[in-house]
């Protein structure tokens, strides 16, 4: 997935002179996850560059560049470090179009790795998407595979509104089935690991049916898409897995079509539970599919604690938790 993201940035730097890429360690070094490797050498030091360690500044100057007409793609090294930039995102970037009645707009795409499963402890594991989906004027994208990551990132960069592009770091190098004790399978063995070199887009706001089924619907995104699919395959569960891809704007039609078909719904995310994006999904399904539901909606999420280093695999909503939730869902 790293190569796909690198390719999307490369394609866009080549196509559009207004695109600039910046962030901590993204220049010469190519990023701590190598997502920008080789881009500075190819596109030059004023198109791809390192920044001071100041997330507020990184986003703040990106807003200014966006106001000028560039399409900045700032990187926040870990989603856990996005909070110093909160004011520039929440009070500024997302409101400038509105407060200037369209005189100004901020076409920036903030990239940031999120999620756990790499023993990153409390400060390299969080999934803060729910903090941002609550903010209007901001689009939030979380890809689950290399093919989507490239197409969605290109669409995000071309979008004229601020986009937060969260990259689940646990699946940078291969899909993850939720079993921490098994070897990692590389993307090369996965159909969505095949990524065309050229430009293509995947529209924001469109979910994908990642696996078809009839028993119940699983709503997931990012890493959890793979955990959900593996759970179905391993247990012979005939569930339908919807990969949301974009959280805001949400593809409500794909969700409701699936839940109306299956009559049951499980929501899976790694982020903490209370006020998480799952709550929004649950409310949406309840509002739209109430008469089709045959059981209460199940939410499988990270616990409402910080991400513990040593107990990471007790925290992570893995196969055991999906199995128990599926039982409850089907027994009801």
């Amino acid at each position, binding site marked *: 997935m790293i190569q796909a993201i690198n390719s999307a940035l490369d394609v866009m730097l080549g196509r559009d*002179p*207004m695109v600039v890429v910046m962030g*901590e*360690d993204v*220049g*010469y*070094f190519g990023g*701590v996850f190598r997502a920008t490797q080789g881009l500075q050498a190819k596109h030059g*030091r*004023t198109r791809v*560059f*390192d*920044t*001071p*360690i*100041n*997330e*507020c*500044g990184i986003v703040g100057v990106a807003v200014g560049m966006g*106001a*000028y*007409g560039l399409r900045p793609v700032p990187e926040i090294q870990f989603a*856990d*470090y996005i*909070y*110093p930039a909160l004011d520039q995102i929440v009070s500024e970037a997302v409101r400038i179009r509105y407060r200037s009645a369209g005189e*100004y*707009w901020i076409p920036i795409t903030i990239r940031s790795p999120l999620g756990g499963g*790499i*023993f*990153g*402890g*409390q*400060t*390299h594991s969080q999934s803060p998407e729910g903090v941002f989906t609550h903010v209007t004027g901001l689009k939030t994208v979380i890809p689950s595979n290399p093919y989507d990551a490239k197409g969605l990132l290109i669409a995000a960069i071309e979008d004229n509104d601020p986009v937060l592009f969260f990259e689940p770091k646990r699946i940078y190098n291969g899909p993850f089935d939720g079993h921490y004790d098994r070897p990692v399978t590389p993307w090369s063995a996965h159909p969505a690991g095949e990524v065309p070199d050229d430009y293509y887009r995947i529209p924001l706001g469109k979910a994908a049916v990642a696996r078809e089924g009839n028993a119940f619907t699983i709503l997931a995104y990012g890493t959890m898409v793979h955990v959900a699919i593996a759970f179905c395959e391993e247990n012979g569960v005939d569930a339908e897995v919807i990969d949301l891809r974009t959280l805001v704007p949400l593809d409500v039609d794909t969700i409701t079509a699936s839940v109306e078909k299956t009559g049951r719904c499980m929501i899976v995310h790694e982020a903490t*539970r*209370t006020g998480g994006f799952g709550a929004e999904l649950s409310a949406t399904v309840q509002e739209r599919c109430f008469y089709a539901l045959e059981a209460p909606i199940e939410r499988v999420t990270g*616990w*409402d*604690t*910080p991400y*513990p*280093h*040593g*107990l*990471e*695999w*007790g*925290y992570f909503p893995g196969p*055991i*938790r999906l*199995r*128990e939730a599926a039982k409850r869902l089907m027994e009801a």
Partner: protein
Amino acid sequence: MTSQDGDARRNLPPLALHVPEPKFRPGDAVDFADFEMPVAGAVDRPPTDSASRDMAGHVYAMVRVLDDEGRAIGPWNPGLDPDRLRRMLREMLTVRAFDERLHRAQRQGKTSFYVSSTGEEATAIGAAHALDPDDMCFPSYRQQGLLIARGWPLADMMCQVFSNSGDRMKGRQMPVMYSARAASFFTISGNLATQYPQAVGWAMASAIRGDTRIAAAWCGEGSTAEGDFHSALIFASVYRVPVVLTITNNQWAISSFSGFAGGESTTFAARALGYGIAGLRVDGNDILAVYAATAWASERARAGHGPTLIEQFTYRAEGHSTSDDPSRYRPSEERNLWPLGDPIKRLAQHLTTLGEWDDERHAALEAEVVAEVREAAREAEAQGVLGDGFRHHPMETMFEDVFEEMPKHLQEQRDQMLAEYKASGL
């Protein structure tokens, strides 16, 4: 249209963006010939009640006590007795052996991550000796030397690194994110520079309560770019806070050289001037200079003359962490050619010059600390390593300490977790 305001080109030369670039990249020959070596003993020692602007020169100069021959000279020479110097040497050697051991343990899969402080040992050990043992430390992740100088058990630190059953942090924190309240050592955060305003706040509290303890904080030069650094300085200045703020300028912030924190245009100590804070720039590989500057700052703080910002000029000899490969962005020989040398060698040379040390004793001391570290590692590893399972602490402990008292929704989640694990036969 190329910008939101149109393409308003006038008959003026085009602007150009400056992007800093370090002197040497991999493949370049490293040559520090144009490094202007500050003269040891040359910088005056101002009275500790000096106004910031009256000692403005100190933010551009560099306090050095040890000269090339290992003699301690000039007004900053703290005149420490040989026993104290030998203790400092022993502690620096312990930090180095500790780092080597745990770096290796990470490579062996015994833990997930480790951060060494190799080459920077003097900045923590020297400071710890100059502060009182109950002065409150707000460190970054690279000041393990503070704990070691305060006599904290090595095995306890290692248990934290292994997230094992002996880990007082219950396996919750990433390796090296120690906490030791009994050593007046604050819990370390992974979020850079957050400890800076916290240290200022702690010291404000100490002043509000008429206490006698001061606070001290450390961060890297890269972290000085964060807003929290500047928030700390303005509060420290306004309330004349009894705090010692140290920047360990080890030249590199992961792959970014100090130029990306503003180091091309000025020194880090000079950040003090705009805030009216006393600033000192110090040879961080000269433990006597580190000690003397920190002692000056703590004397100033205790006497009510306010904060000091100290830049410790040093070099990060190893990678940023075990996740880093520095040969990708800087020449490997840079560390060997670093003009300010190695802090351990320099103190050993000084002791030798005094007639208080020799190679034989040095080798014996090295062997002694390596054995001590090995023994501590054995003790710690007997309590488990990260690699051999994730159940050193009962799973349900995860829910403790989120709040003082566990609210109902967390109790329910805990019970659900236990029931689900039980149902699946675990």
